[in-house]
């Protein structure tokens, strides 16, 4: 809720604003103008000081220039006869007399130092801007700069030596800035006031306290350096400790005597000290302002309270009347109008008191009439109880305030609202008065009582009310109700019990009758007294009246499989008092299977019966056999597969394996099942990293992958397929199918190699043919040229090289052509051993040179081979040459031939103990142009040509190598006996 504004606070704010705003404006203006004035005075005093100092500095520098000018005018510098000694003594006079300069150097116009007192300059002075200006006849003073030590600040003077109005040489003098500090040192003001000299880049180059220059002040921010034409300006900055300084600066006046970059003279003082007076004024004014403001607030509170006091009194009086204090009067002394309001208020209050008293006494009289009767009396208007007497409250158990003003239904239970409402309507509409109405009433404690009322319509204030007297009839009503309840309860109980009894019997009968198992009951002597429908169906006849022993014998005559004593054992002896449950399965000639269970029951009072249950299990038995057969068939199917198969569940437990697995592991099935695959097959503690099974488990899609397994037995390849087993009951099993494909892969690689060779062969045949013709021309012409030249001729050696290289090309081309030829040209029978002997003979000299030991292990029962002898010679030549190249001196080469009766193949093995073939190169050795020999020594075609020839002969060639130990080339050739044309 929004708060209403108060007259008093509005008046208060109005007064404060009217009084304070002009005051605040006045103080603000006062503070601003005063501090501004004071600050201006501070800066003015600084400027007075530094202007004075700037003049001093200017005079000091002028004096030094004059010193040098006087020196320059010395006749010793002008006279052409003056010696160096004369000149230098003049220079020393100036340096030693004044003690201002630390070095004076006389320089020729080309920049060479002619004479110098100390030679203390670091760079080439002649290339400086200052030197150049000096050669034009002007005196120049440099910016302050640091020397080699990095600590001292120096300035340098350049003064021209003029003779006959021509500059003949330059005098250059160096001065330590300390000489200037000696002047500025004397200036101090206040506790923290200093004078600084600042160069054109804002660097502080002078200060009385030397360490302060380099340690405390960072220099003037370059933004502070004013543009040309400004003579003085204020500065404000903080030192490295964060202490704020203010000050003023002036530019040192230009001096017509010398040229110098602008220097700034700066007076600085700590801000606190500099502005202490203006701070004092500011604080004083603020304190005054706060005092006046407090006064205004106090006066405003008093006035606003004074003005609103009478109004507040009238409000308080009204509030007291409202609380029931009639006749309250107030005493107000204020403005005339407010006094009149107060009088009217007092009169109103007094009259109100009088009238109210009269009204009350009249009402009191009537009230007594009804209050005194013992029966309840009430007045109801529009369903609302407007009055009730004490007797009524007592009866209902409520206080007065809890009843008056409430509607009647608040006291009547819900179920009776309808009846009471219709009665109420009847009375009000038809004006008929019913004889007596019973109304239930809820007492305060929750108890329901009944009253008997005789309502009547009475008119009051032009409105119809119902009034009447009522009495409590609860006790009477209770007695009647109790009697009624008892009777009803008895009737209900009888009905319920008889129905339950009937239902129970019916239920049991139905259960027994409709049971799928046969059920019968017999006396202890075996006489069947009852049997259900299923029993009749199983036996084919109702057993009631039979002896149970009889019908058992009827169904199951004694046979080899069934011992009838087993059945009779089931039937308890007549004198037996305790019985145990016993059951037996009987088989009636393989067609009927029965499961019989007999059981004694005691109905109490010595009445005992035997109960029998007979279950037909024929169908179940047949199903079990079928399941077992199916299982065996499945196992047999899996076992028939030569690849390895597993069934693994989602916990990596092996659930099933086929025979291949069991055979490979040489373990019985039972030792493999229920083991974790990773621990059992791979001896790991967790599923193998990257296990494809894991992938299938997440994706539920079968995959096939090739897996390489390397161990001490070598490298093997497996193609592993994994499929999730879909049926709901096996939803978490996975079928793993693993096939050993190492051989398959090897064959594949061979196929690829052959393909590659064939296409390369075709290509190289074309190329070789094209190149052969031009090459022949080259060779031919070279040889013609060679014939024309003598051996001593200048070009003979060059031509010889061309010839040699062309012949080299020829050899390569021949190899290429041989490699590319696709069919065996001329076939004949020949002995492989003889061919090998021939090849060895060709290489004998080379082997001797290298002192190679050769071993021949030729098989004597080798059958002759049918093929191209020249080409096979080529193959053996290539391989044996390679072997000779591969072995070191005193190496060993073994050449063995053998014949395999089974495969009908001739095998030639050429072994050497040379450097071997790197694993990386192993699959490239049959590639054309692949060679590891140095350039020029091998064409890289030998082995690929050999490969082609062997394949042409339906043979095979393999290489095995242990790098550094040995290499074995094995050539297998099909025995040619059956090939004989």
């Amino acid at each position: 809720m929004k708060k209403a504004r108060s007259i008093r606070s509005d008046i208060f704010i109005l007064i404060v604003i009217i009084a304070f705003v002009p005051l605040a404006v006045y103080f603000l203006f006062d503070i601003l103008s005063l501090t501004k004035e004071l600050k201006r005075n501070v800066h003015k005093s600084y400027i007075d000081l530094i202007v004075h100092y700037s003049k001093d500095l200017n005079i000091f520098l002028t004096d030094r220039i004059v010193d040098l000018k006087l020196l320059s005018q010395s006749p010793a510098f002008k006279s052409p006869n003056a010696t160096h000694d004369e000149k230098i003594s003049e220079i020393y006079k100036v340096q030693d007399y004044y003690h201002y300069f630390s070095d004076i150097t006389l320089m020729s116009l080309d920049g060479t130092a002619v004479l110098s007192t100390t030679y203390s300059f670091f760079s080439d002075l002649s290339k400086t801007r200052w030197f150049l200006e000096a050669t034009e006849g002007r005196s120049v003073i440099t910016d302050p700069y640091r020397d080699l030590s990095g600590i001292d600040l120096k300035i340098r003077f350049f003064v021209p030596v003029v003779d006959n109005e021509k500059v003949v040489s330059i005098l250059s003098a160096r001065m330590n800035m300390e000489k200037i500090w000696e002047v500025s040192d004397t200036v101090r003001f206040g506790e923290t006031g200093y004078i600084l000299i600042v160069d054109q880049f804002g660097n502080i180059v002078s200060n009385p306290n030397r360490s302060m220059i380099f340690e405390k002040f960072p220099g003037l921010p370059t933004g502070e350096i004013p543009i040309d034409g400004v003579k003085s300006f204020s500065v404000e900055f903080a030192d490295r400790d964060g202490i704020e300084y203010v000050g003023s600066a002036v530019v040192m006046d230009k001096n017509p005597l010398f040229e110098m970059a602008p220097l700034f003279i700066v007076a600085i003082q700590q801000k606190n000290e500099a502005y202490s007076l203006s701070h004092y004024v500011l604080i004083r004014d603020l304190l005054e302002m706060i005092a006046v403001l407090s006064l205004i607030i106090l006066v405003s509170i008093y006035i606003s309270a004074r003005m609103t006091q009478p109004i507040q009194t009238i409000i308080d009086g009204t509030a007291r009347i409202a609380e029931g204090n009639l006749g309250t009067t107030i005493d107000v002394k204020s403005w005339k109008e407010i006094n009149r309001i107060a009088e009217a208020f007092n009169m109103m209050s007094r009259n109100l008191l009088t009238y109210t008293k009269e009204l009350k006494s009249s009402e009191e009289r009537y009230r007594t009439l009804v209050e005194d009767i013992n029966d309840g009396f009430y007045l109801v208007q529009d369903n609302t109880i407007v009055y009730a007497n004490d007797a009524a409250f007592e009866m209902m158990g409520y206080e007065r305030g809890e009843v008056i003003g409430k509607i009647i239904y608040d006291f009547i239970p819900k179920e009776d609202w309808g009846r009471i409402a219709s009665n109420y309507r009847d009375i009000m509409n038809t004006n008929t008065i019913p004889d007596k109405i019973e109304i239930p009433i809820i007492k305060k404690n929750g108890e329901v009582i009944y009253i008997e009322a005789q309502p009547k319509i009475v008119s009051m204030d032009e409105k119809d009310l119902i009034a009447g007297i009522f009495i409590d009839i609860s006790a009477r009503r209770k007695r009647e109700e109790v009697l009624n309840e008892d009777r009803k309860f008895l009737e209900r109980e009888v009905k319920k019990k008889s129905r339950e009894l009937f239902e129970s019997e019916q239920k049991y009968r139905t259960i027994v009758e409709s049971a799928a198992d046969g059920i019968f009951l017999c006396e202890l002597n075996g006489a069947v007294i009852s049997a259900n429908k299923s029993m009749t169906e199983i036996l084919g006849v109702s057993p009631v009246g039979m002896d149970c022993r009889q019908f058992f014998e009827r169904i199951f005559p004694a046979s080899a499989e069934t011992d009838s004593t087993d059945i009779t054992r089931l039937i308890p002896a007549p004198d037996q008092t305790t019985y145990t449950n016993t059951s037996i399965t009987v088989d009636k000639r393989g067609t009927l299977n029965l499961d019989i269970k007999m059981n004694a029951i005691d109905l109490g009072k010595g009445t005992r019966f035997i109960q029998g249950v007979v279950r037909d299990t024929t169908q179940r038995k047949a199903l079990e056999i079928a399941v077992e057969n199916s299982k065996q068939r499945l196992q047999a199917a899996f076992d028939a597969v030569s690849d390895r198969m597993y069934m693994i569940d989602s916990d990596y437990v092996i659930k099933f394996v086929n025979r291949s697995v069991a055979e490979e592991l040489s373990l019985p099935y039972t030792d493999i099942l229920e083991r974790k695959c990773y621990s059992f097959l791979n001896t790991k503690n967790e599923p193998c990293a990257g296990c494809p099974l894991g992938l299938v488990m997440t994706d539920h899609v079968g995959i096939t992958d090739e897996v390489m397994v390397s161990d001490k037995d070598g490298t093997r390849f497996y193609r592993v397929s994994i499929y999730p087993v879909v049926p709901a009951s096996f939803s978490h099993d996975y079928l793993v199918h693993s096939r050993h494909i190492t051989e398959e892969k090897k064959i594949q690689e061979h196929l690829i190699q052959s393909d590659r060779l064939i296409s390369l062969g075709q290509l190289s045949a074309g190329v070789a043919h094209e190149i052969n013709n031009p090459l022949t021309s080259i060779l031919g012409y070279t040889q013609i040229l060679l014939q024309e030249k003598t051996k001593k001729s200048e070009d003979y050696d060059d031509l010889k090289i061309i010839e040699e290289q062309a012949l080299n090309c020829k050899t390569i081309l021949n190899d290429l052509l041989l490699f590319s030829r696709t069919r065996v040209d001329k076939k004949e029978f020949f002995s492989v051993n003889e061919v090998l002997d021939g090849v060895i003979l060709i290489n004998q000299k080379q082997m001797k040179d290298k002192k190679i030991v050769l071993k021949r292990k030729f098989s004597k029962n080798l059958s002759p081979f049918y093929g191209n002898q020249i080409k096979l010679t080529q193959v053996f030549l290539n391989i044996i040459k390679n072997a000779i190249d591969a072995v070191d001196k005193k190496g060993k080469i073994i050449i063995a031939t053998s014949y395999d009766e089974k495969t009908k193949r001739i095998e030639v093995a050429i072994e050497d103990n040379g450097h071997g073939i790197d694993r990386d190169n192993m699959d490239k050795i049959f590639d054309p142009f692949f060679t590891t020999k140095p350039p020029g020594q091998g064409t890289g075609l030998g082995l690929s040509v050999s490969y082609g020839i062997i394949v042409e002969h339906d043979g095979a060639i393999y290489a095995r190598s242990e790098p550094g130990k040995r290499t074995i080339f094995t050539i297998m050739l099909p025995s040619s006996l059956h090939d004989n044309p």
Partner: protein
Amino acid sequence: MKGIFARHEGVSLHFFTALISIFMVLCSILIGGCSFCGNKEQRLSDTLTVLNWEDYIEMGVVRSFEKEFGVKVIIRTFASEDEMISMVLSDPGKYDLAVTSESIVKTITDMGLIAPIDKKNIPNISGIDPDISNTPGDPLMQFSVPYLWGTSGIAVNRRYVTADVIDWGILFDRRYANRIDMLNDIQENFAPALKMIGCSINARDKQDLTRAQNILKKQRLIIRGYFDSQEIQEHLLDGSTYIAFLYSGDSLMVAQENPDIEYVVPPSGAPIWLDSWVIPATSKNKNTAEAFINYILKPENIATISNYVWYANAVSSSNRYLNSELLESRSIYLPAPLLARCEYYLPLDETTNQFFNKLWYELLR
């Protein structure tokens, strides 16, 4: 009563708060002015003035920098390091970047002549070979960034000089009177003389230096003169000078045009030096200077420069862009035993500097 009083108090408090805040805002505007920070984004300047030896950079690299960054590069040249220092000292604010030999970096740093390098702006500084950057003057590259390095040795015209072994003595050989050029640099000039008397090029003993000066005095009578490297190159090119004491790259550049010229690093060892980039303290375009250094240090750029000026550079990863002639030249990338006999110049202190000045100007007089 209480209710009314409470309300009145609330209103008056609000009123005061408002008054005070208005007052404070007014005050802050009067005193502080606008306190928004300026934009700190680093922008490159329009021009960059670089102080360099003549012909000591490949202009193609400079042009491509200008094109890429929109900065006009003005190159001013100097003939000696003294001249360079003088230019920076006497014209503050004019130069933004300078090449200087590593031996004086410490000296000019102490003089407050150069500003510290902001390595953040030169990411390519990481490519500098640490063996090269680890110099006595500025091992951490706080003030200088290595550029090129080379030797001061002897250029000879093989048409006239046939001796097999060329050592320092040839510079003092009367047979070649008026055909010998020397550099007009104080420290460089004393090096051959000091080597002749068997001293280190960094000898500080006054007697040794005076002995060296005596040799130089005699030599002065037979040499053609003291020249800057550019003049010596011209003399070698036109064949008027047979023997010159000159920097390796300058000699090899001449050898490109005059095949008779051969550059020799004397077998007894030669001065070796490293030139670095420095930024004058008064430069107003420090960021741009650093951007330029960074651009130069790109391996392909510095290799282009090396290929042109025939000096080895400080960026080892640039080798793959270098001409093979350069990379294989035994007078640029020196063989280790010879390199071991070479020496860096050490910085001069005030007293030695004065003494050198004195000896030199006595010589010139």
